[in-house]
């Protein structure tokens, strides 16, 4: 039981860190420019496909990851310059419609280019096996993802919390007009943030590729989770996104793993087998509703 718990806790941490990579870009785009980007999940999907394609072409996972992420960043730059710039000043409805259109286009374009079947992305050979931690085995690749996630999260935290650019970003998130009035080029800053967010998305997609299937529609479900994360954390707050990701990642993973067992101990088998999976799936939404009830602005509101 303890082993299961430890293993699931590590899985939760790993999932949470990947969610953070997704949520970080989303929360900044949302926080600074007040722009709802439903296509954020599509960028994650496209990133995963680019990584898979590049890894296959170069026959190396790491080269593929680098090339794929760079490719996604270029795509993000083009999208920002051509479309998103026009959307910032529009209302939320237009943003939803436009980014919903992007989802349709991205899903179908991926289907045209790579086909409807999921694409395989293999982890590097050196990391394919499990390693022994204490008295149980854990996949080496997942450990590397955790390390990678921690590293990126740490760098991002330093960048946003300690650097000058990070200060501009935080200023932009808390009061855009004032930041502009102080002579910061918010528009250029935002292009950079958007591109950076896209790269993080693609990084998450590429890293998760070997664990999940790289397939059409993989972005939509994860997008909702990323939204839950930034709502829990407070829109525009990087710290909130990190805390929210870890909460959502571990609650979701542990809930799915432990709730059915727990319910079976408390309820008749029949009721438990129906209720268990349902409750595990809706746990994070209940959590979000609960947090919003007590903290309507999320845990770390960016706008004071």
């Amino acid at each position: 039981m303890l082993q299961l718990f430890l293993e699931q806790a590590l899985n939760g941490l790993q999932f949470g860190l990947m969610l953070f990579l997704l949520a970080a870009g989303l929360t900044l785009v949302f926080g600074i420019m007040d722009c709802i980007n439903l296509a954020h999940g599509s960028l994650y999907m496209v990133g995963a496909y680019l990584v898979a394609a590049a890894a296959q072409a170069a026959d190396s996972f790491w080269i593929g990851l680098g090339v794929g992420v760079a490719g996604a960043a270029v795509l993000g730059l083009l999208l920002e310059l051509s479309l998103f710039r026009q959307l910032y000043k529009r209302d939320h409805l237009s943003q939803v419609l436009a980014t919903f259109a992007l989802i349709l286009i991205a899903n179908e374009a991926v289907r045209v280019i790579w086909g409807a079947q999921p694409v395989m992305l293999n982890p590097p050979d050196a990391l394919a096996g499990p390693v022994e931690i204490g008295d149980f085995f854990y996949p080496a690749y997942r450990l590397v993802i955790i390390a990678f996630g921690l590293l990126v999260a740490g760098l991002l935290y330093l960048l946003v919390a300690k650097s000058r650019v990070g200060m501009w970003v935080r200023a932009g998130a808390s009061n855009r007009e004032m930041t502009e009035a102080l002579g910061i080029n918010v528009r250029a800053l935002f292009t950079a943030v958007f591109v950076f967010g896209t790269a993080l998305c693609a990084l998450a997609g590429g890293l998760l590729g070997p664990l999940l299937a790289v397939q059409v529609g993989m972005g939509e479900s994860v997008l909702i989770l990323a939204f839950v994360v930034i709502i829990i954390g407070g829109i525009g707050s990087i710290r909130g996104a990190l805390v929210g990701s870890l909460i959502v990642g571990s609650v979701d993973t542990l809930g799915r793993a432990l709730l059915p067992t727990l319910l079976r101990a408390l309820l008749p088998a029949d009721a438990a087998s129906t209720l268990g999976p349902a409750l595990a799936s809706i746990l994070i939404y209940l959590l979000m509703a609960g947090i919003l009830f007590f903290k309507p602005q999320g845990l770390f509101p960016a706008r004071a």
Partner: protein
Amino acid sequence: MAFYRPAPYQKPVAIALLLVLAALPFGLAAVDQAFYIGFATRVLIFALAATSLNLVLGFGGMFSLGHAAFFGVGAYTAAICQQAGINEALIAFPLAMIAAGAFALVVGAISLRTRGVYFIMITLAFTQMAYYLAVSARSWGGDDGLPLVGRMTLAGVSLADDTHLYFAAFFGLTVTMLFFGRLADARFGRVIQAIRENETRMEALGYPVFTYRLVCFALGGALAGLAGALLANLTGLASPNLLLWTQSGTLLVMLIIGGVGYLYGGAVGALILLCLEEVLVGFTPHWHIVLGLILLGVVLFAPKGVAALFGKRHG
């Protein structure tokens, strides 16, 4: 946004539309295109669903991404009614409206305490919950959805005939539009639009803002439930996919294309989007790309929707 006022030419246009729609199935049958009666029914049903969203979003100003939940609850209620042996639409449809409306009342009572983006997200969260509940409820078909063994009867007349179902949907949409038109121009409609424009002021004037919003939200949910029950009869299935957030997205897209806050916005949008689909499918299997590009074009060049291109709103 300006206030809704019925346009002077509205009545004659509406009567002409009614006549055309009433004659449509017979016309289609006469030219041997009876296949399209099913398609026309789909358009009417989605017009009803998008109109119910228009009540909530266009008139009430509540940006909900959870409307699919009420649509889906309506479909599931119809299927569950049939499973329980109630095959009469006159009982099942009102039950679907009550179930969807009651669910909307609960969701609204909790969600309407939040504002803006948080409201969008919390309504989305409720849709996701409903979806996962439907997927894991094995007695209701789980992943596969709950099929209907056959179409229901309406006042004893079987809806198995496509034309009969068409007229059921036609009747539902007509009554809804009449009700919606009256409501929008009545005191309730004025108040709800005023709250959309300036909530603080209406609060200060002593209007129970929360209650008005909640009633509007629940009404929209109940009408979506009716659309869901009709759709379950058309497709013969209450599918969990109806509860997915992308379904909310589709309804939103219809409404935005048609024109948010215009009486016919939802209906026009449903007609345009479904016809576009139908036409594009014939040209290319990858019609989603074309549809996406068209939607982008609408956002960039016709931001107020198609209904706004014809005539200005009075007010």
